């Protein structure tokens, strides 16, 4: 059997539609609430689940995701709890790919060998580590690939214009590529569609890997527009902001949190799945 990520993108290609990738912070606002949300996402239409591993100093993230990480850390979330949550999810859902996203230090501190082993055992399918560019990622990418985890590479607008950079990025990438739609932190602004289209064309000249596009995608209309170009659309900050907006004054989840997240993901999924595709075929 092929791995879950390859299988999911092959399925999407067969059906001729783009996928929806959702991002939530593990343990935000607490682990039970997060697990409840995560379990609801595939049914609401998420095709791939990104799970943020909390870090105290998320340099590449905007205020929404940073606040989510801080809520999770205040609730006592630790890396081993994140892996346990994925393990419980995996028992109920054997097919939806789960990709862990975060920063290197908590993994380094946990121990790379132990981490990839525990992540594989928990049913994790891939890793995105923001501060490990190809120049530094060997120490994690090697063990991760050996354990059967995809190592998803980030591609930025600056990587498109730098001579020789793209081939280097795709050379040892696997699973899919994550294209950052603008230079900036997560959630900062809206992507420029014509720039995204040009970047995707450049990426597709050097690789057959599916490309997910993220950063700044909030609304269904926008998601549909990106879905016409990309293989998948990532929505992160907007969902984390939605979590924040449904907490009471003490930071506890309100009863309407789950419904709000599910409803938003449903709308995004409908837009992404229904988008007329005009690229990549």
């Amino acid at each position, binding site marked *: 059997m092929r791995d879950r990520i390859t299988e999911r993108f092959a399925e999407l290609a067969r059906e001729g539609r783009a996928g929806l990738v959702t991002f939530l912070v593990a343990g935000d606002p607490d682990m039970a609430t997060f697990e409840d949300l995560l379990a609801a996402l595939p049914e609401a239409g998420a095709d791939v689940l990104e799970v943020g591993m*909390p*870090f*105290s*100093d*998320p*340099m*590449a993230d*905007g*205020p929404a995701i*940073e606040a989510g990480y801080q809520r999770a*850390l205040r609730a006592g979330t*630790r*890396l081993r709890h994140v892996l346990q949550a994925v393990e419980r999810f995996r028992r109920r859902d054997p097919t939806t790919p789960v990709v862990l996203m975060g*920063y*290197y*230090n*908590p*993994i*380094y*501190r*946990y121990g790379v060998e132990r981490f990839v082993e525990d992540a594989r055992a928990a049913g994790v399918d891939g890793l995105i580590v*923001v*501060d*490990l*560019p*190809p*120049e*530094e990622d060997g120490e994690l990418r090697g063990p991760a690939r050996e354990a059967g985890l995809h190592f998803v*590479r*980030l*591609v*930025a*607008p*600056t*990587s498109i*214009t*730098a001579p020789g*950079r793209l081939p280097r*990025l795709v050379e040892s990438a696997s699973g899919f590529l994550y294209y*950052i739609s603008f*230079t*900036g*932190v997560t959630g*900062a602004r809206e992507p420029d569609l014509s720039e995204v289209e040009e970047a995707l064309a450049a990426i597709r000249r050097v690789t057959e890997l599916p490309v997910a596009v993220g950063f700044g995608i909030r609304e269904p209309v926008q998601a549909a527009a990106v879905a016409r170009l990309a293989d998948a659309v990532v929505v992160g900050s907007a969902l984390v902001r939605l979590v924040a907006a449904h907490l009471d004054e003490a930071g506890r989840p309100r009863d309407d949190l789950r419904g709000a997240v599910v409803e938003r993901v449903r709308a995004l999924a409908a837009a992404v799945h229904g988008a007329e595709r005009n690229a990549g075929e």
Partner: protein
Amino acid sequence: MTVQQQPNSFRTGPDERGHFGIFGGRFVAETLMPLILDLEKAYNEAKADPSFKKEMDSYLAHYVGRPSPLYFAERLTKKFGGAKIYFKREDLNHTGAHKVNNVIGQALLARRMGKPRVIAETGAGQHGVATATVAARFGMECVIYMGERDMERQQPNVFRMRLLGAEVRPVKSGSRTLKDAMNEALRDWVTNVRTTFYLIGSVAGPHPYPAMVRDLQSVIGRETREQILGAEGRLPDVLVACVGGGSNAMGLFHPFLDDPDVRLVAVEAAGEGIETGRHAAAMTGGSPGVLHGSRSYLLQDEDGQVIEPHSISAGLDYPGIGPEHAWLKDVGRLEVATATDREALDAFELLARTEGILPALESAHAVAWVAREAPRMSPDTLVVVNLSGRGDKDIYTVARAMGAGL
């Protein structure tokens, strides 16, 4: 602890990938990576270009006021009754600290690279003031990120930066100090990567910054070498400097790394005491970790979350340390010591009254080590202390600590 091999020379690092042993490297987001590669290339070209060095030397002489004096602290030496104590007077530089040495070099590089906008993080405000000053001189747009807490305790420097035409942006996240300012500066850089030069103030951050800042600050050690040979006819026995990120220490130490008889002592901020956990001593109380673009010693919990540091001195209030220091410690070339808030305050007062010098609270940590150790040394021991900055900016903090109102 990692055992690392002893090299033939301590001065050849980093390797071509920016590593000092296991430390250093380029742990940054992909968006920044192409720019960091460009920067490295531009810096190597500038280094090889005699006109770059000539221009820099000219600014250092006529704008900064170099060479800074090597001053024999006669009364302090008498008071301690031990080692003979010299101060390298970086506090006498234009803008009042060693920071400007590095800023001149990086600003010239920014201009070469055609970047019209510079950004910087600052803790005590010394690097921010130096950056704002040089940006004014070169006509560059300048934005300084500073933790809200640091803005409170370093008000004079905030006002100085604004007078110099810089925009000072308060950082409200995390501990609201230097590390958070650096996070925010990195966020700005990732957003404005094509127009902006990030002027890092210490021997920290991703390669090539640690090596570049070291090179630019090494003027301190080169001058010291010449000056002490002139004054004493021999090399010093001990060099002492405070370390936050570690740039004044690296600047002093680097030209002496291959002189095995010269002891190198880095003094970390022990805050309220190492045992209290409220300190900023990354090499004494931390472990290897990855933050702000490089691997080095880091104050972190067992889950790899960064611990908020503490020091009375805003310039030392940082949870990491430059990667070359981490490596020099592990290979046994660097001695690491600590001084508490209290000891630094005592040293501040002592220096004011015996030598008529108000040292920066950062530099007072190095003086505190000397106060502890010099009395036990023989009178023919030569100690050079890097007086990395002046203390005018700290008088409010010192007044508060003394219970005096200003």
